[in-house]
């Protein structure tokens, strides 16, 4: 019976080609726009941490003075970062910021490249589950006593070492020799959740060096530095001893107990810092002057999904509903026009369910075609977004879930639009249309 209905639906669609095209156009454009905005929204709001979202936590401190910033700032000061690194109660922990260095190898034929560099501790690799191809992260001692060691990406390894195991080899960063201890596999979480502050969809760094080198190497900060009070910044040491915030701090908390104990430690820390004249905003009690954010909260607080995108999702859903009403009206007129035929079918013995099914199959077919065309629209518009608006590939690539969401939206739209007309038409009284019209 289903194939019979399909056959009838296809004939009916072909019989009024303009109207059918109009309906397919309406539904496909509505779906195309919705899928486009939804796709961008979905990829932007994706949480790459997955089930580790609650385990991975960052720390924020209310180190600002009275009447300065209204919110917690994502970054913390160097002083606080160093103190947190020395907190032996914590399991995995890593301070991190971004810099840039020119990389070269012994092979002078290969041109130097200026690279974004992540300065961090060894636990960073474990907290964020960074996969290694060769070697591993540096030894724990390096976090305490600086050593010129480096972890590079497989891509750089290919460029400088033809992809061979380069552990133990030397590369030069700003002409300083660093010993390679590990090569990581492709790793580029999107959004870049470990540091979304300067472009949440930028690529991950490909060079990682020990945080402990910061003091002696005085790396430039390629990220936000914010301050709330005037401090002369004449030397790098001024930066390290200032109240300026520029470092992210990450830790792994495996249970509520661990979280509570960190909360307690931080509270005591704030109290202790107040005695030496820091954390001067006494409007905040120490327990409120600390914040532990898991990945969900962190992504939310850092506005990884721009509000424009949320508005677009809302408007495109409204747009889809206009298309839906539009199609509903067209289907209703179309179906009512066929009431005489329905009368005949009913007289001949079709039940209401059979008529209803016949028309729902037709509606479903329009929805299906609309969905397919809509997916094409979405693909086209995402490609356009990528090429004309320099949107990142990671956001404009069609998310796998869209292959499920699109038909779902298409069919539910069509069904919503079709149920009423099909219901009206299946209620046709068989006797009404049988007399010579």
């Amino acid at each position, binding site marked *: 019976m289903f194939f019979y209905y399909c056959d009838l639906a296809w004939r009916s669609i072909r019989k009024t080609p*303009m*109207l059918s095209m*109009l309906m397919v*156009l*309406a539904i496909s*454009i*509505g779906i195309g*726009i919705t899928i486009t*905005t939804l796709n961008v929204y979905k990829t932007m709001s994706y949480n790459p941490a997955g089930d580790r979202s609650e385990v991975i936590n960052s720390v924020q401190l209310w180190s600002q003075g009275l009447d300065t910033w209204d919110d917690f700032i994502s970054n913390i000061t160097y002083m606080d970062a160093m103190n947190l690194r020395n907190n032996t109660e914590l399991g995995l922990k890593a301070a991190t910021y971004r810099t*840039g*260095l*020119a990389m070269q190898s012994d092979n002078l034929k290969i041109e*130097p*490249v*200026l690279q974004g560099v992540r300065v961090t501790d060894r636990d960073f690799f474990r907290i964020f589950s960074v996969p290694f191809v060769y070697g591993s992260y540096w030894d724990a001692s390096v976090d305490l006593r600086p050593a010129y060691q480096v972890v590079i990406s497989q891509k750089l390894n290919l460029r400088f070492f033809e992809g061979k195991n380069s552990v133990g080899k030397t590369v030069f960063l*700003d*002409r*300083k020799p660093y010993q390679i201890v590990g090569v990581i596999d492709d790793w580029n979480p999107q959004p870049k959740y470990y540091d979304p502050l*300067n472009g949440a969809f930028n690529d991950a760094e490909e060079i990682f060096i020990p945080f402990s080198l910061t003091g002696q190497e005085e790396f*430039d900060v390629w990220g936000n530095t914010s301050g709330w009070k*005037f*401090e*002369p*910044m*004449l030397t790098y040491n001024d930066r390290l001893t200032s109240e300026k915030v520029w470092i992210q701090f990450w830790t792994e908390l495996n249970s509520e107990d661990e979280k509570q104990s960190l909360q307690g430690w931080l509270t005591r820390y704030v109290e202790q810092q107040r005695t030496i004249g820091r954390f001067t905003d006494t409007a905040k009690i120490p327990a409120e002057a600390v914040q532990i954010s898991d990945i969900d909260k962190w992504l939310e607080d850092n506005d990884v999904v*721009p*509000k*424009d995108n*949320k*508005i*677009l999702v*809302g*408007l*495109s859903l*409204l*747009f889809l*509903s*206009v*298309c839906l*009403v*539009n*199609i*509903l*009206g*067209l289907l*209703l*007129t*179309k179906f*009512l*026009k066929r009431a005489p035929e329905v009368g005949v079918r009913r007289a001949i013995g079709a039940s209401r369910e059979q008529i209803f099914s016949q028309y729902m199959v037709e509606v479903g077919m329009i929805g299906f075609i609309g969905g397919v065309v809509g997916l094409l629209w979405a693909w086209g518009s995402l490609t356009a*977004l990528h090429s004309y*608006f*320099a*949107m990142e590939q990671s956001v404009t690539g069609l998310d796998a879930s869209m292959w499920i969401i699109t038909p779902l939206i298409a069919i539910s739209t069509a069904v919503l639009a079709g149920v*009423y007309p099909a219901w*009206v038409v299946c209620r046709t009284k068989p006797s009404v249309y049988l007399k*010579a*019209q």
Partner: protein
Amino acid sequence: MLHIKPILSSLMRSKSAPILLLLQIILSVAIVANASFIINERLSLMQRESGYAEDQILTFSVYNFDPAIDNIKQNEVDQLILRALPNVIDASYSNMLPLSGSGWMDRWVDSPNEDTAKSTPGFAFYLGNEHLLNVMGAKLIAGRNFSADEINTNLGDSGMLALVSQPLAKAFWGDESPLGKTMYQGDQTVTVVGVVDKLQGAWIDHENFEYSVIQNIDFGGSSSNKTYMVRALPEHIPALEEAIRKALNAENPNRVLDNFQTLTELKSLTYSNHRLMATVLSIMVVLLLLITALGLTGMVMFNIQRRTKQIGTRRALGANKRDIIQYFMVENYLICIVGGVIGGMLALVLGQQLMSLYSLPMVPMIYPIISVIGLLIVTTLAVIVPAAKAANISPAMATRSV
């Protein structure tokens, strides 16, 4: 004479179709009003005068990775080389690039006494030498530029001078002239020596976007990573990148030159989200009107087919073609106006939601009104074709049984 009453009662009797049309118009007005408001807002953001000679400025970054390089000296030498290049009007170091989305923000206070001091609003904090103003193409409207011998190389130096943007001067000093005022940054004093007509900062969405300060510090020696701005006529800019690379690499090859961009390109990139929003919403509005119009045409066409006999009867009873067209137009306008009023209210409600959720400004009344008018025009176009076709139905239809 418009016979509204019979049309109205006929509409009331055939419930579902007019209700659907009404619903569609309500939603359309709500969407179009809000979308066009946002579009207009974004377009006006993009059309703001920046104060810069945008198409004459080429920006780029230099990274001297050789620790042996003396950055202070190198900075001086590089700028001399840049200014000496053919076709270059002027060149200067700048600590930040205008309209780029990243840079320095700072504020001053007007007294050394922390307790009584009044703070200026935050401003974009440009550091540069006496050439910077000329490179930017900004217009000095009062006071003077720095002279070559007044340029400092460090933040801690004494003898700090500043140029302020007119909007900042207005915001802090009102009608009083800021020239000669002494401001404080910690223990340091800064004297305002000039006012620049317009000088936008780096953050296009910041409320203090128009507030800027240029201070007399050539900070290019402070780090190995720095940005330069070079001014040349637009026709000379394309060849400039190659010339700059050649000249600077000849001087010292141990560096990376990167991010060559004109200020126009930089601005366009920074505004790309706004442009994207405006474009997407415009497309949405156009498609929405198109779909509404086509849907309406389709529906009217079907209705006319269904009412062929009725129309024929009307014609036979003496209705002329104009009456028939008028019938459909009035029917359409009735729905449009009712839908428009409800849709307009919905638009305002929706606008209020957006306002509270995303701190957008409130949709002004004019947008729903314009949307309704736009919709009236579109629906007129959509109805007139099938209505004219209906008017051509022969009165003989009345007597024919189809």
